[in-house]
């Protein structure tokens, strides 16, 4: 038994600095991402969660090119992406433009990396995440930014919830819809810049949307949904770190798979409950 235990929690799992960084940054991201994801789902804007991490990827590539801080590069480009997504949604119904912007962001990222002669492992890390390679300073940045984001979500919580569900009513109550749309875009962008170093640009979506959607299936109220979502996200990244360290399977892949599994399970539970409720409805006996 102790043997098995030691086998799961291999030596160094909680002591090696790079693993401590991994635990901290993954947990920070797993707390903030589902909170933002909750609003992404509420507003039905999951394409933003697709698009913005790709913008962030281009930003990190640009940062490599000019030798700037990669988190800074991520944030600037993610922000540009989030704002242009919001703008396009309001001013054109054309999905093709959105899709082209996505492709453009990936293309730009590729271009920057090629010009900069960036090593393949670094490109790989940006696309698929490099949790075990997160540095002390990155861990610090991710933690501080996560705390700031959680505080901001706490502050804008009610007006953002109101304007995401009954926008006309919110406006009549004096909530500025423009300000809320902007706040939402900034939140998504900053969240993406935290998530990309952890699970990568291609898989960031899974941590933003998967747990939040699972939470939506498991709970009826916003608080319940956010609680479940954070639990699912934390569970996914923690288990992913343990398995990843034991087996050296890629952690980004593990995080994505685990949150997908959680999503499917939540959905099945939801369907089972609905069927039960329906049965009670048709046969009151």
């Amino acid at each position, binding site marked *: 038994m102790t043997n098995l235990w030691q086998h799961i929690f291999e030596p160094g799992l909680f002591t090696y600095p790079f693993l401590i960084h991994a635990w901290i940054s993954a947990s920070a991201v797993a707390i903030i991402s589902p909170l933002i994801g909750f609003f992404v789902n509420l507003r*039905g804007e999951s394409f933003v969660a697709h698009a913005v991490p790709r913008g962030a990827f281009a930003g990190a590539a640009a940062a490599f090119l000019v030798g700037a801080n990669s988190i800074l590069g991520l944030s600037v480009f993610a922000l540009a992406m989030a704002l242009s997504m919001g703008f396009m949604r309001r001013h054109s119904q054309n999905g093709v433009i959105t899709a082209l912007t996505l492709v453009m962001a990936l293309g730009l990222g590729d271009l920057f990396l090629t010009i900069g002669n960036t090593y393949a492992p670094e490109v790989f890390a940006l696309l698929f995440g490099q949790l075990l390679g997160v540095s002390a300073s990155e861990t610090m940045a991710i933690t501080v930014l996560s705390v700031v984001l959680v505080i901001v979500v706490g502050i804008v919580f009610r*007006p953002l919830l109101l304007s995401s569900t009954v926008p006309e009513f919110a406006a009549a109550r004096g909530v500025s819809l423009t300000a809320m749309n902007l706040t939402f875009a900034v939140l998504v962008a900053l969240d993406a810049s935290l998530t990309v170093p952890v699970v990568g640009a291609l898989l960031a979506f899974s941590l933003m949307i998967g747990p939040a959607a699972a939470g939506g299936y498991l709970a009826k109220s916003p608080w319940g949904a956010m609680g479940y979502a954070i639990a699912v996200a934390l569970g996914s990244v923690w288990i992913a770190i343990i398995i990843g360290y034991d087996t050296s399977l890629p952690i980004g892949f593990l995080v994505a798979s685990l949150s997908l599994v959680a999503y499917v399970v939540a959905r099945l539970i939801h369907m089972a409950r609905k069927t039960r409720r329906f049965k009670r409805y048709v046969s009151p006996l």
Partner: protein
Amino acid sequence: MTSEAAITFNQVHMAFSGHTILRELQFNIDKGAFVGVIGPNGAGKTTLIRLILGLIRPSSGTVHVFGSPVRRGKRQIGYVPQSFVADPDMPLRARDLVGLGLDGERWGFAFPNHARQQRIQDMLDRVGATRYADEPVGTLSGGERQRLLIAQALLTHPKILLLDEPLSNLDIHSGHEIIQLVAEIAHDSHVTVMFVAHDMNPLLGVMDQVLYLAQGRAVVGSVDEVILPEVLTELYGQPVEVLRINGRILVFASGEMVPLTHSESIAHGHALA
């Protein structure tokens, strides 16, 4: 005179990028009145509501509410938008939505406390939404959603209630229930109601006044004062006929078979039978 008025429009003119939507609006809405705002699609009914809410400013003229100029975000005006989009899996219960009416515009989040829960529960009971108070809003019917929006708007105890086409997604029966509910609350709590509809017939029994909008202009008065061929002919700027059948009123452009304000049953030929 003005002290008796809940809402005052004074020479209000509203144009969007040079295109005039409302002109020379000049009227008072009495305190406690139930007013049906009637007019064809695109007549400017929603624009009129948005002017009262202070969401848009008139191109010229003034709008006053209880004697003071309109300002956005006043809690003494309750607003019921047409409906809301919600998918069935959205984690928002009826009571969460209604609760946002209490203080949804404030920063931070609301710590649940007994007084707050009770206020929300009382309002849910008041509009008859007790049974589905804990259901996700996305699973509710049009009529149920409408009740929640009304509860949401009433939580601040507004003195004016503005409803923008609350009947548009409802069947005749639920529409009737919503009208009765609003009329009852308005009467009990002395609320001034502006109820927007494109067909005046469902409101005939409850409205004190009709505000008839057409061609960018408005006439306000009792149904018997306003819904007359000569008044509406003047308003529409073309010959108009008014038909009263079995307590229903139909307004036609002379010589045309389709009523000017759309009525469900006439469109399907019942009233003509």
